[in-house]
Structures are given as C-alpha cells and as structure tokens.
C-alpha cells in the first residue's frame, strides 16, 4: 500500500500503529480512573517458556512482569514506552525506518525517558513486540547487524531501494562471499523463486562456511549453505524458516561442540528465550543438530579444550532448560560434563582440509538419514 508521496505503509505497520496507540490509551485510561499506571509484559526467563504444541516451538508462558509507576524504575519505563510509541508512530506516518541504535541516540532528546544504554532500548523494543504481538519490522525498527550469507542453488527476487524487483541465483549470480540476507525477509521484500537442493546446512563459523564453499560442498552434496555468524540474527532465522517452509528440505545445524553453540541451535530450532513471543515466525522446529556433539569429540578423537567454569555452568543451566529436555540432549550434555572437554568445528582439520567434506559430513548426514 502506498501513502502520500510514495510512503509505504504495510498492513503490518498499520496494525502495529493501532496496537501501540492502544497501549497509550490504556495508560491514559488508568490515569483518568485515578489508578497508578502500569504495563504488563511476559517474563523473559527460561522458567517461563512452554512448548507451543501447534507450532512445535517454545513460547512464553503466563508469567508476567508488571511495571508500575509506583516505583521510579517502573515509572521511567512507562514513560520510555510512551516516547518510543510516539516515535514509532511518527516513523510509520512518514515512511521512515531507523536502526535500534539510531533510536537509542534519538532518545538523547527524551529528557527523563532517555535510555541509559542501548541494551535498554533494545529490550524496550522487544517489550513492545511482546505486548502488541507485532514484530519490530512492523515498527520500522531494524537491527544493526545484517543477516548472514547464503550460497547454493537458490533463486530469489528481492525488491531494492528503488522499489525494483531484482532476481538472482545464489550460486551463479553472487561472489565468493555469497548472498547477504537483508534485515527484512518478508514476502513483500523477498520472494523465493526456486530451490534446487537436497538440504539446508546452517554453519556457525565463517571459517567452516568458507571451507565448505571452497571444497564445493554445496555442489557435491546439493546443499544450501547458510552462515549463522554466531548467534544468528532474526532475519537469518526467519530466512531459514521461510526457506524450509517453501522447500520442505531438511535443515541441519553444524556448530562448535560447546554449550553456547547448543544455544545457537536451540534458537534456530526451538526459539530463543529473548524472542519467544515470535518463535513461530523465527524457529524451524524441524531443524536437526548435526554436530559437533560431545560423542563426536570421543569418536573422532578431536583436538579439544578444557571446559571453563562458565562453560560448565552453561551446560548445567541447559540441563534445567526445557528446550533441552530430550533424552538425546540430556545424555550428550551429561557426557560433556563428564568429559570436561569441548571442540571447535575446525578441529576436524586435524585429519586434513577435505576431511570435513569427504568424511565427517557425509558420515553424519548418512547417520541422520539425510543422504
């Protein structure tokens, strides 16, 4: 839809704007009724995520945090919400968008509502998503970090800044670094035209992604290679989700063998605790973990490091995380706690540069029944 002077206002934008105004209305109503203003937001802890049976992803439960103007922190938070709502409303009206970082800097002029850190402003944007059940893209807010890279026989059409739709293939029409996933991967911006592959393989580290590209794994095994770039950005997760929905191809996650990497997998497959309100948009419950598993460390006799105290605590915390409650995960985590060891993906180079593409991945994929 197009507003005045070519300003685009999507249905999502309009819905978000309406819902944000409802928040302001509620607060105004509380004041008129002589009540202390308050806001309720789902509590974002691992104790408050439950499995959504319909979508097979983890979402927030019923625990809410109430921010009340009774105390200074709560009152300031409510005021910040109002300023942010006003700011978003103006952006939607004028067809602009801003990064989360820009919003943090804009808050400099908000007096008492100024954000002390960008972390605070990011959290507040998440609060608004949770309350409105809209995504921040609907608010015209985008993250700083871009999505990661893709290489594989995949043809997409992307609308560029001038509104022209460009169509290209992610194997033939891109350079060595692949196709960069934009922050907005929704239908109106990006369409998937065709996928000629047998699997989607998401890789944690840039080094391993480049190794697979150099070894031509995308062609030899007909894989769409997606670089996760550490903890994957929302757009990367959303892209994998859309790609999977479109092609129904198996999704395989290949990371380092440490507790932090398991969380990367969990955020792709089950939904992240921070974004559990939009898990059904972001998570791909069909995604499967390939490795490095603690068993791989033993079976492949991989070079390893000793677990740090933080690693151990993270593993223990995962034992109480409902997302890791399957028998397989529990036994692997317990094995690792016993081994007290962790290994990186690139430790596979112990057996030569081709070992990962010639031996490890084929063996593991076969084991998983994918090839």
């Amino acid at each position, binding site marked *: 839809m197009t507003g005045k002077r070519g300003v685009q206002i999507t249905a999502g934008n309009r819905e978000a704007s309406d819902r944000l*105004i409802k928040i*302001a209305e509620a*607060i*105004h109503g509380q*004041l008129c009724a002589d009540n202390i203003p308050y806001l309720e937001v789902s509590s974002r802890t691992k104790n408050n995520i439950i499995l959504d049976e319909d979508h097979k992803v983890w979402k927030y439960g019923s625990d809410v945090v109430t921010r009340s*103007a009774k105390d200074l922190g709560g009152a300031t938070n409510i*005021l910040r919400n109002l300023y942010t709502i006003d700011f978003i409303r103006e952006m939607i009206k004028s067809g602009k968008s801003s990064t989360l970082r820009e919003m943090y800097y804009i808050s400099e002029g908000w*007096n008492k509502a100024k954000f002390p850190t960008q972390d605070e402003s990011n959290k507040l944007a998440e609060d608004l998503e949770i309350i409105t059940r809209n995504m921040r893209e609907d608010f015209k807010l985008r993250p700083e970090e871009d999505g990661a890279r893709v290489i594989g026989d995949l043809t997409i059409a992307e609308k560029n800044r001038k509104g022209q739709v460009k169509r290209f293939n992610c194997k033939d029409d891109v350079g060595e670094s692949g196709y960069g996933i934009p922050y907005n991967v929704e239908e109106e911006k990006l369409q998937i035209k065709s996928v000629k592959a047998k699997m989607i393989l998401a890789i944690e580290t840039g080094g391993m992604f480049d190794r697979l590209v150099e070894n031509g794994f995308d062609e030899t095994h007909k894989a769409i290679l997606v670089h996760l770039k550490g903890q994957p950005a929302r757009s990367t997760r959303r892209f994998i989700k859309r790609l999977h929905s479109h092609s129904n191809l198996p999704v395989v996650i290949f990371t380092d063998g440490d507790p932090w990497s398991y969380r990367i997998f969990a955020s792709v497959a089950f939904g992240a605790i921070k974004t559990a309100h939009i898990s059904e948009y972001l998570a791909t419950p069909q995604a499967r973990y390939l490795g490095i598993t603690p068993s791989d460390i033993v079976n492949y006799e991989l070079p390893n490091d000793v677990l740090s105290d933080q690693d151990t605590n993270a593993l223990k915390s995962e034992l109480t995380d409902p997302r890791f409650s399957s028998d397989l995960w529990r036994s692997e985590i317990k094995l690792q706690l016993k081994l007290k060891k962790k290994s990186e993906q690139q430790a596979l180079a112990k057996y030569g540069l081709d070992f990962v593409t010639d031996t490890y991945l084929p063996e593991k994929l076969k084991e998983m029944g994918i090839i």
Partner: protein
Amino acid sequence: MPQPYAETMAKSQKEISISDFFAKNRQILGFDNPSKAMLVSVKEAVDNSLDACEEAGILPTIYVRISRTDNKDRFHLLVRDNGPGIVKKQIASVFGRLLYGSRFYAIRQSRGQQGIGISAVVLYSQLTTGKPAIVTSKISDDHPCHRMEVQINTKNNRPQMISSEVVLWEHHHGTQIEVEIVGRYHKEKRQSVYEYLKSTAIVNPHVEIIFKDPDGMIHTFQRVVDKLPLPAQEIKPHPHGIELGVLKNMLAYSESRKMTSFLTTEFCRISPRGAREILGRASISEKKNPRRLNLDEILVLYDVFNQMKFMSPPTDCLSPIGDLLIRKGLKKEIDSKFAHTVTRDPRVYRGTPFQVEAGIIYGGELPAGDTVKILRFANRVPLLYQQGGCVMTHAVERINWRPYGMEQRGGKGIPAGPAMILVHIASTNAPFTSESKEAVADVDEILDEVGRALMECGRKVKSHINKKVKLKKVSEKYSIIKDILPEIAKKSSEIIGKPNPPLDGVITKIMNVTVIDSGIIYHEEGGEKFTEVTIKVQNYTQKTKKFRLFVKVPNGLIQGIFPERNRMKSGIIEWEIGPIEPARSVRLGFTILGLDRADYDDVDVYHSHLTGEVIGADPL
C-alpha cells in the same frame, strides 16, 4: 658464739625505695619502649596541667612542644599550662618525689590519682638521658617566677634540687616542665602524640591545646565551651568500696576518739544507728578508740562492712562531660553526618560511684569497610594502649551490631562500618588493670552499663540509616510525581489526542505515605541565640489523618510553640495533629533560645496513632 644467720641476712635486707623499684620496672608505668615513653610523658604532663587548672577554676590553655636534639633518639619535651602555679617549696616535691600529691586520699574523680605520673616522667628522663627536669612556675604577677632543675634521688625517694633561680616570665601564672627523654616520634599512628591530644580535646571541650611538633608545625585544638566542667566533689569512702589496707590506715590515723564517731564521720552512708549495728555485729565496743583496734578486729569489721547493706554512695561527686559537649567535641574534630551521644545516670560498683558516657558518629568521611575505631576515655583521659584488654572494648565486642545496620563477622567482635565509637567512664576510682592506666578492668556493673549506653547509640544509628533509606525512597517518589508522572500524562494524551487527566488521586496513591520533614534555622539577634525549628507534616495518603506528634527538645528555653494545640512536659512537646485531609499539609514549630549553632542539629520526632507508612518520625 656464731652470729645467727638471720642477722647476716638483715645486713643485706634494706628497704627498696619506690623510685628504685620503678627504675627497674619502668614498664609498670608505661615506659616500655621509646614510642610509648614519648606518649606517656606528654600524657602525664598534660593530665597534671589539666587537673591543676580545673582545680583552680581556670580554663586550661596547654602548650605542648616536642623538638629534636642533636641525638636522634633524644627529644626535648616542653609542656606549659596557665594553671595556678606551685609555691616554691613544693615544686621539688611535686616533680621529684613519687607518690606525692594532693589527691592520694581524696575520693574524687580526677585524672591523676596516685601522684606517680609526672615524677615518673622526671625519673624516666633522668634514667635515659641523665638530664634533670627544668620546672618553671609562677603563682601570680605579685610573686617571683622560680625555675628549678629537679631530679629524684632513687635511693630514698627524695627530690634533689640541682639549681634554683628567679627568672622573668611573661605569663601571669602557670607551670612549665621541660625534660629531655629518649623517645620516638610518630606522625600518623593510632597511638601518636597528635591522636592523644586530639582525643583529649574531644572529651575536654573546655580546653585549648596548642601543639608544636618536631617539624615545627603548629596544631591548635580549639576550645568549644567557655565553661569549666562542674568540679567533682570529694566524698568520703563508702563501706563497700574500701580496701582492707586503706581501712587499716584510716583507723590508725583517725582523729575520732570513739568507733561510733569514726564510722559516722569518716564514711558516707553510715548513720549512727548503722554504726551501732556494725559494731554490735563485730563485737567491738562503741567507745573503743579507733587507733586501738587489733588486726583481728579490723578483719571482722571489714567482713561486717561487706555483709551489711548500705545506701549507695552519693553520685553527685562525678563530673560527666555531658552528651551535648561530647557531641560538640566529636563534631569539631571529626567530620561525619550523624552523631549520637548518651550520658547514663551514675551507678555504683562495690561502693564506688561511676558514670558511663558513650557516643557514636556515623557516615560522612569515615571509611565504610574498616573496623570501627573505638575512642576510650577514663576520667577524661584518652586510653591509647591495651584496647583488647579493656572493659569498654569488651562491651563493644559483646554487642551484636548487625541489627543496628553495621557489619560484624559472626555477630560479635568489633563491628565494621563508617562509624566511630566513644566511651567515657567517670569514676572516683576507675578500676584500671594496671598502674599505667591503659585499660579499665572488667567489672560486671561497668560492662553492663557501657553495653546499655552503646545499645542506645546503636538504635540511633539504625534509625538514622532507616531514615536515610526512607528519605531516598521518598525522594524517588517525589521524582515520580514531579517529573515522570506529568510527562506520562502529557505524552499519553498527546498520542491519543485527548486532554491531560488530573493527577491528584494518582499522586496520593503513589506516595501513600505521611512525610514529616523538619528544618532548623539558626540565627542571632541582639546578642540572643535562636534555633528555629519547623516541622512540616504532609499527608500523601488517601485517608484523613489525625494523630499525635512528639518532639524531644533540649533543656533550655523553648518558646513560640505553634500551632496552639500543644503541651510541653518534661522536655517533650506534644501536638494534637489533624485532621489533615489527603494531599494536605500542616506546619508546626518552636524556637529554642540560647543554644549555639549546631548544638541542636537533629529533630527527634515521634508519633502515636498514625497509621500507614510514615517517613521522618518513629512510633513512640
């Protein structure tokens, strides 16, 4: 016929003079090492000067100078006072004879008691440097000023005057002593001359001390009150406080001719009837001459004293510093946010009157993580050594300070926090653990009394901390209602395009507290001193409030109490407050006449019948 061996022995048995004994055992008097010797020398000289000035009713101004000599281990010490001076023929005895003094048999609170102090300094100087003490004294402008060199003959405990001359002295009256001693000077140390003088100034706010240190720096500890403490009264011994030896001496030198008059005139709290009962129980004739009692009779008499009950000795013989003056002294020397001081009523242990005073200061510049410093005083003299062996320290350690908001490992021991504790024990006979008077012994009555005083201080600190926490909360709430809430209203109205809602109701709901805020303004007008106190009571609740408010006021002239519905009784003003409607406030106040600036700096407000959260007043 061979000579009996005992007679041979007798030849080598001779009286060891007290001076000789102390010459060989100088640690008994506190001269253990050069650092301590330096401090003790200053202390003895200053104590002597203060006692002399106070006895003569003179506001003491003491000048202390320590200077280096060519020998790096030797220092020259000079202490001068503006006291009454000493008549010529007594000078040598006062400074050159141990156990010579005017206070030995007086039962009265004083700094020095046994007359050992200053002559021990002379002795120490003589033993370490071989130099005599130089004493200069003048009793008035109409009399010559004498300067003498004095030493002690350690064999017979007699003073030795080495030289004597008449000199011109610019001072009207006073005494000055100069000694050269082996010592060590510490600049920054807990047990330093500077600390000692500073502590002395704290508990003696009527004293001015000028101290010139070896580097030539001059430190002045100023006088904060121009009034001498009430002189301590002499009292006669109490039958429960007397020691056997003293009783023997009293009997031997009594001028009474009959036992009944001996008991009634030379003791306190023995009535003629009591005397007859004592003598009856001891089977001693009432008419017996006190000088004729044999040892068995004395022992029986002593036992009977302790079996019988007597009225406690009078306690007006003590001269406490007073809580207000301690506070002034503390605040003058140490920068802190909060000070509370207590003067307990006098008590008695074993027939000896004593009185405990305690103070605590909290916050300000004091370091938060350190263990609390304890300033100990006995009869206005700072105690700097043997902290661990002192009843005052033990009382501090016995208290669980954690409920009072201070840190303390395991709930005992010296607490930690931004605080300093002061304890003063005044007594006609403070039970020191040793002759060097560095620590007071563990007497149960004293231990309990110090404990009670400290717990009162602790409670005040706790309520001070609570007040601070609550005030922070209240200032946060003010910030909400003043800055944030109106913005919330404005912004939400703007977004939805509606008028600003009224906020009064929400404001009272957010505050939901009664705030009692007090302010003190001091001013002088036509030579009169006014301390104006105002108290604002703000009802930030949704209910109408009706209650009573009490304010403890200092002794002195209180005037202009407002509003009308009040009454004043035994140092407490009571108001009937209210009804105050929600979001309304009332003002109360009064004026104190005659107090100095900062004498009254904390308004103690209590309430009764006031429900809900209250900030600024404690429930009565």
